[in-house]
């Protein structure tokens, strides 16, 4: 079943830098884990340092990752033969290079931030061990040159996410959230596994290159099955409907975790997977329609739910879900560069937003309810600037990064012939603008409504990363400016060559931009009228309470997804388990065994009753036996001639 020669995507060779950037975070994790008690506060610096080295190695790997020799794009490093016919290796091409840069770069900043944020926690070293381990796992995911390696990374990031969501494991809510996140992500893992089985059965290899080379030979059904199952994994990891319910709960973790894992990197793994498997998706219009629709639905649902949240991190969580919906929609319909672009900008502005909210939460002694904030602009001007740039960027205000990427996604839906998705995307953009500005206004405008007397301003380790992130939050989008001549398009020129054919939509790109901008402006305007004006902030506490009480139940219950999943799967499984464990196992299965044993005893009791101990009874039985024998001979034919 081993193909004679593998079709690898990158240039084969030995790349020490690649190995270094991959393994350094693992080393950091192991050191922090092993020597945690000895390292104490130094653990944070150690982990951050290792990650910084990893980032540096990633940057230095740029030439290797973008090299183009004889059709092979990027660098390929063979590792080992994992199972017969299933080989592991690392692949650094523009796509994985981009992800690796974001993971190590943003990861480095968030590590730095965490040194301040997690200061004084009793499990400080453990936190950094988990964080470094997460980076290693995420790098495994994006650097793998094959589906099982990707699956390994996929599972390990799930584990890291589980550890970090449940980091404060003395809180029952955190424990429950961690378990939910892990189990739902295992559903996704299982989807990818199933896809791998089909792939191995048809290709005999798990390497991306082999699979993509063989993909033209797949039937439509096989292709759709593979894409659909892969998307189960993508949906679970990227919080797409209906596997999204873990993401809001995941905010139980420390805020830097939310920024790194549940905003910037891990949750975009689904986007990476689809972009990586672009040749498969491009060949399956059914899969494109399915994934695009689910992405759009998720974008809309996340935005709708984001409108009625009061916990600042849950607002950001639903916005994450919504924005990933955009990305999935983009890569799903075939606008791969658009979806990936939105991943890049989102990684920065969402990390920015989460770190900014972390500044507030840290300052207000772990207060997360925006109703108990307000008026923070004067108290925390730096946080305000940070949050405001993030909000402006996510809303797609021209000039800020989100504008460029979101525009590409929205126009991409039209280009690939999905006008309905275009409509959903535009509406969602408006809602996004509304609820993000709502958060901004409620948090920073008006009077302070909480009861924290002294605002605890964070130290430089927390402020510096936020400050640095402002730059790409504003500026990274300009890479995508300029159409085909933009640096972005040139960077990905060889990557998505096999994308679906682009049709010329009825309305031009300029017009769509204006439509989007109008909707966004409307959203901002409504938010301003409801929360930003002086009259609105005058009786803010009472108004917010009223508003909280009047949330429609369907939104308050998050479209009942939790309840439905609970009723359909959790309760059913538990009920079945209870029936089997408490009724079937002891009564039916073991009952049969016990009856067998008892019947032996019953037989013994029966024969025992013959043993009366009476000599005469024994004699009688003996005589009866003799009589039977005699009768047999007497009655047998010819006994007496």
């Amino acid at each position: 079943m081993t193909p004679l020669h593998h079709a690898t995507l990158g240039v084969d060779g030995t790349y020490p830098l690649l190995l270094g950037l991959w393994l350094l975070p693992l080393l950091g994790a192991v050191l922090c884990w092993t020597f945690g008690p000895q390292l104490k506060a130094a653990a944070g610096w150690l982990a951050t340092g290792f990650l910084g080295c990893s980032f540096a190695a990633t940057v230095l790997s740029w030439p290797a990752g973008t090299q183009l020799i004889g059709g092979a794009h990027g660098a390929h490093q063979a590792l080992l033969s994992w199972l017969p016919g299933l080989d592991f290796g690392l692949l650094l091409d523009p796509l994985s290079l981009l992800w690796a840069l974001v993971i190590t770069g943003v990861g480095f900043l968030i590590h730095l931030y965490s040194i301040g944020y997690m200061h004084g926690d009793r499990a400080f070293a453990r936190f950094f061990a988990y964080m470094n381990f997460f980076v290693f796992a995420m790098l495994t995911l994006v650097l793998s040159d094959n589906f099982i390696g990707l699956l390994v990374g996929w599972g390990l990031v799930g584990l890291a996410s589980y550890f970090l969501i449940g980091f404060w494991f003395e809180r029952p809510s955190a424990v429950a959230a961690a378990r939910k996140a892990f189990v739902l992500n295992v559903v996704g893992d299982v989807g990818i596994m199933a896809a791998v089985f089909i792939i191995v059965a048809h290709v005999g290899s798990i390497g991306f290159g082999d699979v993509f080379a063989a993909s033209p030979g797949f039937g439509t059904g096989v292709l759709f099955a593979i894409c659909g199952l892969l998307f189960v994994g993508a949906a679970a990891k990227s919080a797409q409907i209906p596997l999204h319910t873990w993401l809001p709960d995941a905010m139980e973790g420390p805020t830097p975790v939310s920024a790194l894992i549940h905003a910037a990197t891990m949750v975009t793994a689904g986007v990476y997977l689809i972009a990586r498997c672009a040749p498969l998706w491009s060949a399956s219009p059914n899969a494109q329609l399915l994934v695009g629709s689910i992405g759009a639905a998720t974008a809309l649902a996340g935005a709708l739910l984001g409108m009625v949240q009061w916990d600042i991190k849950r607002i950001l969580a639903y916005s994450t879900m919504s924005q990933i919906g955009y990305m999935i929609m983009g890569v799903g319909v075939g606008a791969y560069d658009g979806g990936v672009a939105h991943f890049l900008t989102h990684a920065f502005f969402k990390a920015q937003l989460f770190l900014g909210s972390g500044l507030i939460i840290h300052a207000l002694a772990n207060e997360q309810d925006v109703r108990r904030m307000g008026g923070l602009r004067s108290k925390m001007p730096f946080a305000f600037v940070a949050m405001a740039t993030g909000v402006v960027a996510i809303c797609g205000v021209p000039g800020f990064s989100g504008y460029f990427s979101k525009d590409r996604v929205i126009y991409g839906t039209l280009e690939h012939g999905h006008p309905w998705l275009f409509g959903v995307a535009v509406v969602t953009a408006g809602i996004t603008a509304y609820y993000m500005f709502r958060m901004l206004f409620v948090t920073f405008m008006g009077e302070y409504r909480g009861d924290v007397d002294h605002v605890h301003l964070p130290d430089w380790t927390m402020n510096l990363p936020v400050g640095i992130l402002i730059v790409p939050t504003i500026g990274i989008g300009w890479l995508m400016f300029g159409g085909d001549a933009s640096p972005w398009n040139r960077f990905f020129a060889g990557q998505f060559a096999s994308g679906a054919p682009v049709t010329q939509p009825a309305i031009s790109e300029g017009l769509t931009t204006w439509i989007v901008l109008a909707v966004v402006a409307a959203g901002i305007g409504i938010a301003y009228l409801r929360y930003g004006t002086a009259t609105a902030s005058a009786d803010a506490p009472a108004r917010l309470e009223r508003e909280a009480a009047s949330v429609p139940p369907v939104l308050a219950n998050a479209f009942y997804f939790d309840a439905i999943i609970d009723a359909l799967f959790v309760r059913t499984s538990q009920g079945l388990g209870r029936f089997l464990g408490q009724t079937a196992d002891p009564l039916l299965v073991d009952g049969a065994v016990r009856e067998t044993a008892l019947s032996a005893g019953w037989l013994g009791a029966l024969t025992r009753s013959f043993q009366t101990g009476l000599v005469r009874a024994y004699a009688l039985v003996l005589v009866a036996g003799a009589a039977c024998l005699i009768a047999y001979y007497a009655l047998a034919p010819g006994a007496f001639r």
Partner: protein
Amino acid sequence: MIAFWVLSVVLIASAVWTITAQKPVYSVVGLLANFAALAILYLTLSAEFLAVIQLIVYSGAILVLFVFVIALLSSGVAPFAAGPNRMPKAALPAVALVCVALGFVVFAVTRGEVAIPPPPAGSTSALGPVGTADVFGSVGDFGKALFTTYLLPFEVTALILMVAVVGVVLLSGTAPAKAPTRRRAAGVRRELREAVVRDGEDRR
């Protein structure tokens, strides 16, 4: 022929007497009569040596042993007595059924002509009047057969007798075996119960 019928009547009557007599001693007397009649019947069958053995061994040895045992047990606390009949009631029809079955067999056998298979090979003396030397059934005839042809069964018999002797010595020669009868067990239980009750009353 007349002797056969007379002896038959005596045999059956004495046998019935044996199993129905109230006292064991009467049974012994019945058995004695039975053995004696049987010995005479043996004589009519030209088995003079066995007739004598019958008298000596059965009447002389075994029956005397019975009488001794009767005397031994009678010298105990009470005359022979019996507890309640513990045979299950279901045994009665069973006994009846067995009787009918056996009776049927007897009836069938005596009614028909019993075919006598040809005699086995082997030398034996010719028939002659009882009391004559070396005729069929005489001491000489019997002895020759026993110590030549049937030597091995004879030796085995000796072994059986030896085992019996050893067994008897073991059974009755040691300390009196306790017979854990139900009645005694019930008595012991009753005593224990009474002792416990007394103990409880004392404490009170």
